[in-house]
């Protein structure tokens, strides 16, 4: 008995179809297909260099910034192929937010950091309200409400990362991509981010890349395991509900990896 047999058909907000990705001549991903469920947390796991970050960056077309990047296949986001000619990646990125491995606030005040995305997207409403909402959602408001004008670098690493999450939330995306968001943080700050992820999935769809398998097991609803072979080209080995991946993996490679028997 698995969660798979839920009666309600889950809504797939993102559908990846036969996605291949190339950096110049080097193929980094091969024929990846998976559906991302809305309002769930999907974890991408796998050893270094397996292409999980590359896959993550395909969802908001951040890979376009690399010269010679090439994509084959499709990613359907709410019935739109985000790689079709007519789609401007700038629009995709305002709907699919991203938080990076190392906290990267701008050298500006806490307020201006959260306002950054609003200003870029020409938001004309009440900035104070939106910024408070984003900071409350990212569980940072109580810590910073009295010093919004302070420089973002005066915050601790964990606070900076939650500020980056607030910055991404401010423009009200549908999806949030987290690229190893806690790998530069201490365990206490990590727990705070993980708690936050659990709360945020009510309103957002979350895709998280992580090296930490316990973290994937703790926070995610579904897990995708990627692996690269001799040619260093990443393929999707297994994709299932997290519970199944960690307790009853179908593929031997998955089992080897999650039990640590993998070199």
């Amino acid at each position: 008995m698995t969660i798979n047999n839920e009666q309600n058909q889950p809504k797939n907000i993102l559908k990846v179809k036969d996605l291949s990705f190339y950096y110049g001549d080097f193929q980094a991903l091969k024929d990846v297909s998976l559906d991302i469920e809305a309002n769930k947390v999907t974890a991408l796991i796998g050893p270094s260099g397996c292409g999980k970050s590359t896959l993550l960056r395909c969802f908001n077309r951040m890979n376009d910034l690399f010269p010679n990047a090439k994509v084959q296949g499709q990613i359907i986001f709410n019935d739109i192929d985000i790689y079709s000619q007519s789609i401007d990646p700038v629009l995709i990125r305002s709907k699919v937010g991203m938080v990076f491995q190392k906290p990267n606030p701008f050298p500006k005040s806490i307020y201006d950091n959260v306002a950054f995305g609003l200003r870029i997207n020409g938001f004309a409403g009440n900035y104070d309200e939106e910024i408070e909402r984003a900071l409350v959602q990212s569980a940072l408001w109580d810590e910073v409400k009295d010093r919004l004008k302070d420089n973002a670098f005066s915050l601790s690493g964990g606070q900076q990362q939650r500020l980056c999450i607030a910055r991404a939330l401010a423009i009200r995306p549908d999806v949030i991509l987290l690229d190893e968001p806690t790998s530069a943080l201490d365990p206490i700050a990590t727990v705070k981010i993980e708690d936050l992820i659990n709360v945020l999935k009510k309103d957002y769809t979350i895709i998280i890349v992580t090296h930490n398998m316990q973290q994937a097991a703790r926070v995610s609803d579904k897990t995708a395991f990627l692996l690269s072979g001799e040619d260093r080209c990443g393929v999707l080995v297994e994709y299932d509900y997290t519970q199944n991946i960690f307790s009853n993996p179908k593929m031997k490679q998955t089992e080897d990896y999650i039990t640590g028997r993998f070199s």
Partner: protein
Amino acid sequence: MSTNLKLNQNNLSRRKFIGIIFLTFCLLGVLVAMMGLISLLIQVILQGYEWVTPNLIFNYPSRHPEQAGLWSALIGTLYMMGLTALITVPVGIGAAIYLEEYAPKNWITSFIEINTSNLAGVPSIVYGLLGLSIFVYFLKLERSILAGSLTMSLLILPVLILASREAIKAVPSAHREAAFALGGDKWQVVKMAVLPTALPGILTGIILALSRAIGEAAPMVAITALVYITFIPVTPMDRFTVMPIQIFNWVSRPQDDFRGLAAGGIIILLLLLLSMNSIAVILRNKFQKRSEE
């Protein structure tokens, strides 16, 4: 065991000795450099301090040393610097942004990069002659402030472009990524994420480039033809002179008094330079505090 430890200690004292020799060498280097600067300053100040009077600043050049001043040269210098800044700053920063942020990385851009550095090292008289033939004769700008400013702009553009490129290059790519990930287009990323962080470095580059231009005599010899100017330039098409030229003119006179005047002129020029550099430091610290904390 004990022999090993002893060996290591011998080795340690030898390493410390070498370290002290190196330190002495470095200190000597600093001393020699400082001696040159200090003796220059002392000589100029001793020779020129009694000539630094309101006359020197507010009078026009004259055949009589006690009445001579560098008012026209001072105004000429400030006028030319202002015009040079107006021309150089937008062009230089624009070029730097294009080369760092927009230009594809290929052999053409690396060719341009190498040659920008080479241009920064070309002797200034070459720029003077270039300006003379292009701006003064070919474009018929005559020996005007405009021709002088354009020539100076050519001279300091490579310096400014190099400094601005370095400042832009030093902006962490994480800032760019963050701005792109928030839905910024290229220009928004440059304007809102890159330029504010690069600004202190760019400002320093601007002031250093202008400081270089303010002291240059060679290209101005070619452009102004060492003319004797007893009026304040009004339009950019007026003839002009600048402080290094006036100082050069005084130094070459036979009378001793004029050499005193020249030393006085150098003091004023140094004060101008020093205040420009202090402004650069103050501005940089102010913006850095805002952006780095």
